[in-house]
């Protein structure tokens, strides 16, 4: 604060602190604290709020633990998000490596430009595109039938469709961090390893991946969080059997009319994502400053 006043004067410094306080206290902390408060209270009629029944408890969280359908959907969301993360990594890593290490500068910048376009198109439209492509009488089935790969049309909506749509939606959150971190790797290191007889697999596992760990961690953290918190892809590309945890939360708010339970479920989702962030950063020994670049 002292340094801030010395640099900008009391008036301007005060204004900056006010703005930051408004943001962090009013828009970040207070809403989350209120969500925790909601999550720990029972859902009561307005007349009973503040009455003897209005006490803190873990009932809403216990409800999630005890309701088999919701619990299964929660765990399914967790592992499916992890699967989305892994699939996105596998799809992106070779291209990121090629872009950063072997592509000529002009080819690389052209490819990056081509990648940016889908990145800027919003998630709803990107998912809508898959919705159209995956339709039962849609282009994908027509193509596969025409090529003789399928004998009868496939139902793509469901777990597979959701996975494909999510990997598509989050590809660039994985690709760009990895690309940026591989780019700073000296080409000579890879050449030296190759000259010394290392196989391609060893070059990647021993040199490139350790070097790019900050980028890989960033990509994984973002992809997992986005997948677990996704609403559009499961809503459009899912089937009744492939519900996502966010859809359950939405129903508590706008169909079930129990905001307290909805808040508890949202809290569980938040804690899950923060845990994944912290664990990933710890495992990769990466600091938060490296993540948000």
């Amino acid at each position, binding site marked *: *604060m002292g*340094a*801030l006043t010395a*640099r*900008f*004067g009391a008036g*301007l410094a005060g204004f900056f*602190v006010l*703005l930051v306080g408004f*943001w*962090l206290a009013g*828009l*970040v902390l207070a*809403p989350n604290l*209120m969500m925790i408060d*909601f999550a720990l209270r029972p859902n009561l009629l307005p007349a009973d709020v503040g009455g003897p029944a209005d006490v803190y408890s873990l009932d809403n969280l216990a409800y999630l633990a005890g309701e088999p359908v919701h619990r299964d959907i929660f765990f399914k969301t967790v592992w499916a998000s992890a699967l989305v993360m892994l699939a996105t990594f596998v799809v992106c890593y*070779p*291209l990121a490596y090629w872009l950063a290490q072997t592509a000529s500068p002009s080819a690389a910048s052209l490819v990056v*430009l*081509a990648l*940016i*376009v*889908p990145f*800027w*198109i*919003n*998630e*709803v*439209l*990107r998912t*809508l*595109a898959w919705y*159209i492509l995956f*339709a039962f*009488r*849609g*282009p994908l089935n*027509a193509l596969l039938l025409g090529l003789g790969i399928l004998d009868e049309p496939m139902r793509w909506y469901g777990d597979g469709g959701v996975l494909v749509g999510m990997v*598509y939606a989050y*590809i660039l959150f994985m690709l760009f961090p990895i690309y940026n971190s591989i780019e700073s790797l000296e080409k000579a290191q890879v050449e030296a390893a190759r000259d010394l*007889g290392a196989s391609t697999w060893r070059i990647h596992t021993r040199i490139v991946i350790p070097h790019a760990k900050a980028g890989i961690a960033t990509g994984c953290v973002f992809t997992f*969080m*986005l997948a677990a*918190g996704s*609403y*559009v892809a499961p*809503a*459009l590309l899912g089937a009744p059997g492939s519900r996502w945890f966010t859809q359950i*939360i*939405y129903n508590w708010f706008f169909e079930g009319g129990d905001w307290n339970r909805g*808040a508890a479920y*949202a809290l569980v*989702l*938040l804690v899950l*994502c*923060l845990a994944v962030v912290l664990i990933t950063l710890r495992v990769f020994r990466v600091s*938060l*400053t490296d*993540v*948000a670049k």
Partner: protein
Amino acid sequence: MTDAVALPPPATPVRTPLATRAAAAIPKILFWIYVGAFFVYLFAPLVVMSAAAFNTSRFPTLTPWLGTTTDWFAQMADDAAMWRALWTSALVALGVVAIAVPVGTAAALVLTSLHARARSVLYALMVSPLLTPGVVIGIATLVLWRQIGVGGGLLLIVLAQASFISAYVMLMVAARLQRFDRTLEEAALGLGATKLMVFRRVLLPFLRPALLAAALLATLQSVENYNTTLFVRGFETPLTVYIATKVRTGLTPAVNALALVMIAITIAGALAWEIARRLEARRAATPS
């Protein structure tokens, strides 16, 4: 472990047999198949969606192709609900830029004047909205404001979006601030400028490119947001919500026409952004 052993002796300049050369080419061929598949995966959905805007079929598809038409564009342009949704999105984006750009800039400036320990704590708090799922941000905002009797609507959409878009602005401004030469400020002060004048005439002009870029990014982020908006929208229908609702209430290629227009704007924007960035990079590279 056997890798080193399997290494052939230093090659004498003999022609390698054709089979060996073919075998060596396989990884390369596989790689290019992968690159091709990657870009088909990336663009095929967008191409299909755009092309379906020209099919007379009532459901957006390519198969069967019933005839080529541009009627869906006219129908989209006549859709009053779509224009209302666009207007709602524009109002929200304006509100978000008005909050997020000053807040994010102030945050970046406050960070620079802190010591390492306090800075890392505050920094973690500031980037935390980026690591929070969008639906949670929407829900948290919704429940807080219900306590004071404010329901979902324009105000809550703006506040909920600003809570994480401010973090993007902070990161962009902080990146630019790292290249700022503090001696310029000292020189201005030495020449008798007030602190306020130094801020307005030295620091702000330096930050201007970052502020413009941040305002553009904030607008895009705001217009394309869906997850957070869904929970705090009340009875408002911004563009993304409108599109998502259309899927359930009757999807026609008019939505594809809208998508194609948005894709075209996006491509133009991405190209303009890239060109501007390269010009900037070139200017920075050439010593003036």
